């Protein structure tokens, strides 16, 4: 049991950046194809990050690198807890703490663009947090435990009884992946009214670290999607991985077919989805389980 846990932690620490980076590369390639372009190589995100590590370090305030470092550590820690089979609630709160530190880092630079980005990031957190919590509650009600290790060996797939929660989770995944229409605080595309939002004042190595932790985070979030299909068998695992890939493709499609929305829309729609799909699903679960 312990050995298995240690193996999965090490596998996560080593493999997640590769998987996340390749997913990001595929994202750019597929996006380019959707727009009728050739697009960069699939390894482009790795080149970008390696290049960032080669650049001259420029920091606005010394303290911002410290905050970013804490952000990176907490993002990785939340993934470690998840893949070690830990508590789902702990996972999401550690992730929230991580985001809070990135926001503090952006505020500490005193740049107006970074501050507007940070403010929008706070609004985004408010938008997605209820649905994330409800996802955990749903898993608890169906599987009787918050621990990932118990959920993953459950006898039946939580997908059908949690279908409303699944839809809601997909919705907020667009916010978490920083995809249009909800890439308000920072985006990988050329929306430039905010310069680069949250990351305006970070450059070189610091920006590279943020990018890497984004990969870690994406893999962990896809792990959540996987949980909906885990039933302790190989077939459950295969279906889970396939659905993760389809989900990612779906997010890229959404990203390319929408313009950026205002934060009011992001906020309202995320809460309405959480209330309609999340709450109704939990109520039904309450009746049947």
């Amino acid at each position, binding site marked *: 049991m312990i050995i298995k846990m240690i193996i999965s932690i090490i596998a996560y620490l080593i493999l997640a950046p590769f998987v996340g980076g390749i997913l990001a590369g595929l994202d*750019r390639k597929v996006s*380019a194809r959707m*727009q*009728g*372009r*050739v*697009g*960069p*190589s699939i390894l*482009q995100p790795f*080149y*970008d990050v*390696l*290049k960032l590590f*080669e*650049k*001259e*370090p*420029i920091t606005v305030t010394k303290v911002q690198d410290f905050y970013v470092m804490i952000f990176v550590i907490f993002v990785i820690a939340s993934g470690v807890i998840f893949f070690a089979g830990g508590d789902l609630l702990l996972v999401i709160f550690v992730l929230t703490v991580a985001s809070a530190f990135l926001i503090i880092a952006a505020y500490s630079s005193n740049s107006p663009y970074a501050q507007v980005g940070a403010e929008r990031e706070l609004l985004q957190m408010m938008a997605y947090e209820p649905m994330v919590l409800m996802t955990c509650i749903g898993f608890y009600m169906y599987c009787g435990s918050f621990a990932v290790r118990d959920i993953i060996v459950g006898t039946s797939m939580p997908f059908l009884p949690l279908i409303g929660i699944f839809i809601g989770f997909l919705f907020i995944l667009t916010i978490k992946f920083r995809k249009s229409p909800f890439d308000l605080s920072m985006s990988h595309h*050329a929306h*430039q009214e905010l*310069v*680069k939002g949250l*990351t*305006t*004042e*970070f*450059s*070189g190595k610091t*920006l590279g670290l943020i990018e890497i932790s984004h990969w870690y985070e994406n893999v962990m979030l896809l792990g959540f999607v996987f949980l909906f299909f885990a039933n302790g068998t190989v077939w459950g695992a295969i279906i889970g991985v396939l659905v993760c890939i389809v989900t990612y493709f779906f997010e890229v499609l959404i990203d390319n077919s929408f313009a950026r929305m205002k934060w009011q829309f992001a906020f309202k729609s995320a809460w309405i989805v959480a209330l309609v799909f999340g709450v109704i699903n939990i109520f039904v679960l309450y009746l049947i389980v």
Partner: protein
Amino acid sequence: MSYIAKSPWVIHYDGSSCNGCDIEVLACLTPMYDVERFGIINTGNPKHADVFLVTGSVNEQNKEVVKQIYEQMPEPKVVVAVGICACSGGVFKQCYNILGGVDTVIPVDVYVPGCAARPEAIIDGVVKGLAVLQEKRDNMVKGIDAPAEEPEAAAEEEKTEEGGEN
């Protein structure tokens, strides 16, 4: 092995141009030319950029802006002057407020002539700039602390070589 030449991020600044060259710079991003093939991304942020594309000449008002953008970019960085206005002042040269080409305020590494410079020429200019970028990176690793000297000499060569058209 250095990755700097594989992922050049570009910032584009429009000095006092007629807007012709700017349209051509943006045309490079379209599916027709698709510069993202080379990993080139158009960022709006000097702190993320490696290549500074300037179109149009420099005047008394934007002199400080050009300088500031240049100073905010982390090393290694290259400057590409796009269009004859950015190279020498072009048709605006005689105006009372014009200082001349971009090289009157910051060191320029590659000159792309043309009025307007064609997208192919711009892409070619950026790709030429990558060699300079690589060289600056190598100097940085070696600890040579005068990146401004050498590229300027290289730039002069470039100018005589390519600037024959104007």
